[in-house]
């Protein structure tokens, strides 16, 4: 019919869009595409525009005139804001429409509002047409990622506060039922009861369970032993009365203050009826403050035996929980865990060197796999080996035996400190993994020359090696050689790439996620196998190709990706996706290990909140993106 009318109206759309980001920098073709497809709708003040119950949104909305408020609905807060006001030029719901899921927020017109509406399918097409718009949406999703991290922070700081801080209520610190006796009881019997229960503080309470006094170990010497107190007399005659009591709702801080003020080491905890609930000692409070990065570190470095290191190992776990609570991202967190585990391993090695004389031997203790990548989570078993130099004058066998005996002790001590022995025997005490420089080179070389499946699997573990103790030069020389071998070997890289593409991201065509069909774990996704590993494997191929020495996945992505010309924004979106999956794994392992069962990597998408699900989906999309890149580069 008459297109001049349409052109005129489209021009009014374009005039508006050009005044607002991100449309102001949108490519001309894409802007025209958008302008042609926007329809205007009116929403009177106080009316609903889009609600979570509406299902997957049909439209992407851009506020044309008026104000729209995004409000969280439902019990679980998934974003940092409870309401957010959107004005002209602002669009919604980017996350939901990208993910094809119902919106988490309800969107309401707070004034009379006109919205431009773009059909959902056109929204996705627009992203294809417009790199700048796609970038905008990616950044937006990334900001959701940050919000989700902050959400995790809140969740964990609650947990950590419950367990950790000086604001913890005393009710949460009581470890066992109080040991109490009646005031009439003979002192001898009371003392026997104390010994029997192994407590340093005896509460004295009447039949109504209200505490009337207290006797502590230090009182015994001063009041009973030295004065020759008659043990047949009732305990009431020698106890401290009245006792210092605090309500169970009082905080650990209150208790510390009470102890400091009155110079006592124990506080009786009572409930609202003054009934005895428990005893808090100075030591209980001290434990709260004990755990910090520096303390753990100096604890490790000065540890005299494995028992001390076992304590440190438990502290590392606790610290990890605290750090998660403080909102440290997965990258830094895993680096912290990694640094402390490194220190722990080094100390174990040092302690063992007292018993194993390796003086004058050139060797290095290597970490492989996730430890080699600085990406340990909390349930990682050991993957280690030794590289050494055989001096010309020495016999190989005796030297190797010495190294293996040393390694066996180190492996066992590591196991005692919470790093389970490797089921696949990837340990330094395995003669196949305690090798000279030349033997390692031969081993690596054979995998590169003949990349059969087992060789490739080995490459994914061993090529991520890193020196934990000993001679760094050996490892450096090996790395240098390795990169020179792989960089110029397209056939090997292609085989590695094909291996990395073995597993696809669990994104479904119909459902959001494809979950495991293993009947033992219905509805779950293994975030290691189907998540983290996709990034790790792809990043490894890139690093071997581009000659990047870093072993951590994020570093590899940034450095190697940059060298082969992938845009920095894309790379950091990929790294974000990887870190989000790592964060979910850590969180999951934490929650699990707190319940006493061993941490695994299986997450039920249905159990995640809406935002996490959305971001997880985006993270998988990033995995798909990097896989696509490998596919294209290696024509697989």
């Amino acid at each position, binding site marked *: *019919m*008459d297109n*001049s*009318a*349409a052109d*005129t*109206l*489209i021009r*009014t*759309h374009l005039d508006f869009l050009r005044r607002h980001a991100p449309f102001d920098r949108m490519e001309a073709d894409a802007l025209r595409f958008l*302008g*042609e497809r*926007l*329809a*205007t*709708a*009116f*929403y*009177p003040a106080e*009316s609903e525009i889009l609600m979570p119950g509406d299902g997957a949104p049909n439209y992407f909305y851009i506020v044309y*005139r*008026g104000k729209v408020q995004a409000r969280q609905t439902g019990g679980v807060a998934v974003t940092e804001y409870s309401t957010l006001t959107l004005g002209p030029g602002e669009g919604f719901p980017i996350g939901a429409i990208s993910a094809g899921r119902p919106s988490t927020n309800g969107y309401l017109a707070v004034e*009379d509002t*006109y919205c431009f*509406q773009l059909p959902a399918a056109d929204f996705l097409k627009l992203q294809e047409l417009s790199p700048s718009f796609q970038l905008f949406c990616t950044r937006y999703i990334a900001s959701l990622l940050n919000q989700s991290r902050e959400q995790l922070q809140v969740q964990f700081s609650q947990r950590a506060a419950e367990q950790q801080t000086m604001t913890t209520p005393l009710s949460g610190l009581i470890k066992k039922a109080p040991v109490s006796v009646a005031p009439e009881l003979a002192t001898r019997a009371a003392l026997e009861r104390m010994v029997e229960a192994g407590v340093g503080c005896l509460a004295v309470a009447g039949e109504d369970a209200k505490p009337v006094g207290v006797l502590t170990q230090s009182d015994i010497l001063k009041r009973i032993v030295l004065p020759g107190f008659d043990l047949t007399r009732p305990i009431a005659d020698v106890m401290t009365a009245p006792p210092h009591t605090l309500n169970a709702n009082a905080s650990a801080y209150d208790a510390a203050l009470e102890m400091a003020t009155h110079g006592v080491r124990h506080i009786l905890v009572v409930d609202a009826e003054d009934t005895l609930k428990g005893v808090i000692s100075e030591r209980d409070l001290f434990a709260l403050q004990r755990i910090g990065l520096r303390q753990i570190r100096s604890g490790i470095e000065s540890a005299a035996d494995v028992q001390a290191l076992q304590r440190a190992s438990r502290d590392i776990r606790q610290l990890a929980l605290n750090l998660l609570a403080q909102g440290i991202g997965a990258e830094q967190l895993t680096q912290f865990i990694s640094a402390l585990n490194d220190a722990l391993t080094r100390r174990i090695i040092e302690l063992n060197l007292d018993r194993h004389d390796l003086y004058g031997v050139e060797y290095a203790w290597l970490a492989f796999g996730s430890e080699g990548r600085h990406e340990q989570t909390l349930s990682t078993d050991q993957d280690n080996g030794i590289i050494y130099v055989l001096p010309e004058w020495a016999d190989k066998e005796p030297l190797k035996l010495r190294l293996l005996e040393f390694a066996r002790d180190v492996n066992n001590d590591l196991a005692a400190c919470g790093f389970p022995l490797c089921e696949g025997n990837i340990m330094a005490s395995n003669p196949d993994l305690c090798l000279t420089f030349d033997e390692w080179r031969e081993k690596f070389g054979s995998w590169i020359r003949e990349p059969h499946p087992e060789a490739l699997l080995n490459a994914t573990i061993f090529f991520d090696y890193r020196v934990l103790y000993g001679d760094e030069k050996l490892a450096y020389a090996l790395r240098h050689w390795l990169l020179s071998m792989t960089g110029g070997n397209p056939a090997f890289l292609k085989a590695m790439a094909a291996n990395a593409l073995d597993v696809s991201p669990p994104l479904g065509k119909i459902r959001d996620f494809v979950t495991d069909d293993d009947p033992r774990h219905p509805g779950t996704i293994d975030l290691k196998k189907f998540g983290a590993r996709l990034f790790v494997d792809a990043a490894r191929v890139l690093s071997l190709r581009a000659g990047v020495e870093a072993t951590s996945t994020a570093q590899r992505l940034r450095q190697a990706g940059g060298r082969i010309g992938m845009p920095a924004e894309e790379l950091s979106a990929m790294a974000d996706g990887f870190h989000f999956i790592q964060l979910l794994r850590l969180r999951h392992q934490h929650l699990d290990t707190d319940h006493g069962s061993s941490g695994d990597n299986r997450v039920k998408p249905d159990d995640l909140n809406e935002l996490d699900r959305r971001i997880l989906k985006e993270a998988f999309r990033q995995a798909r993106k990097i896989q696509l890149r490998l596919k294209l580069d290696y024509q697989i």
Partner: protein
Amino acid sequence: MNWLSRLLPGSGPAVAPALRSTLEDIAALPAPDLSRSHYETRYVVVNTETGPMEGGGQRLLAVGAVAINKGLLHPGDAFQARLGSAPADAMANLLRFIAKAPAVVYNAPFNQGTLERAFENNLGSIPPLEWLDLMVLMPSLYPERIAGQARMDAWLGAFGIERLDHRDALLEALAVAQLHQVALARAKQQGLGSPRELLDAQSSRKWLRGS
């Protein structure tokens, strides 16, 4: 006999064969069901551009029309034409664009009157369209905003609607169309859920205020 027959040769000015076939096509279109909700209905907002006529009065120079289909205003569903040297074609094309949808104007005595005169003069007859006049409806729908009849600018201002160019029939129709979206939202709240109910209310003196 429908209204078209009055447009046919012999009953008025001569109509070219091509035009006649256009008019037959339009007549064959199914009539919309006016009892459906506003959000299942296509409305066409029509606006005129006029100039002084010799001997007094206003002459239609151009028409602009914007559809509100299922509550949405889509830029592709718009029409404009200058009457120029082929006024019959322009009017027939407008009629084809309206396609029997309820027509919406601001100030019916002027706009509807001007349009009907132009239909009659150029096509030989007045098509039986359903007309809604926002000048009449708005004070009854939004009595708290403006009591009594007001100029269009007052209503546009009340809802923050920009009038991009008041000399352009199409851009003014765009503004009126946005006003019509506002009207539909309140009509629905007041229980006037369909074009039929809105038309009935318009003709009921009891409901109307300030007219």
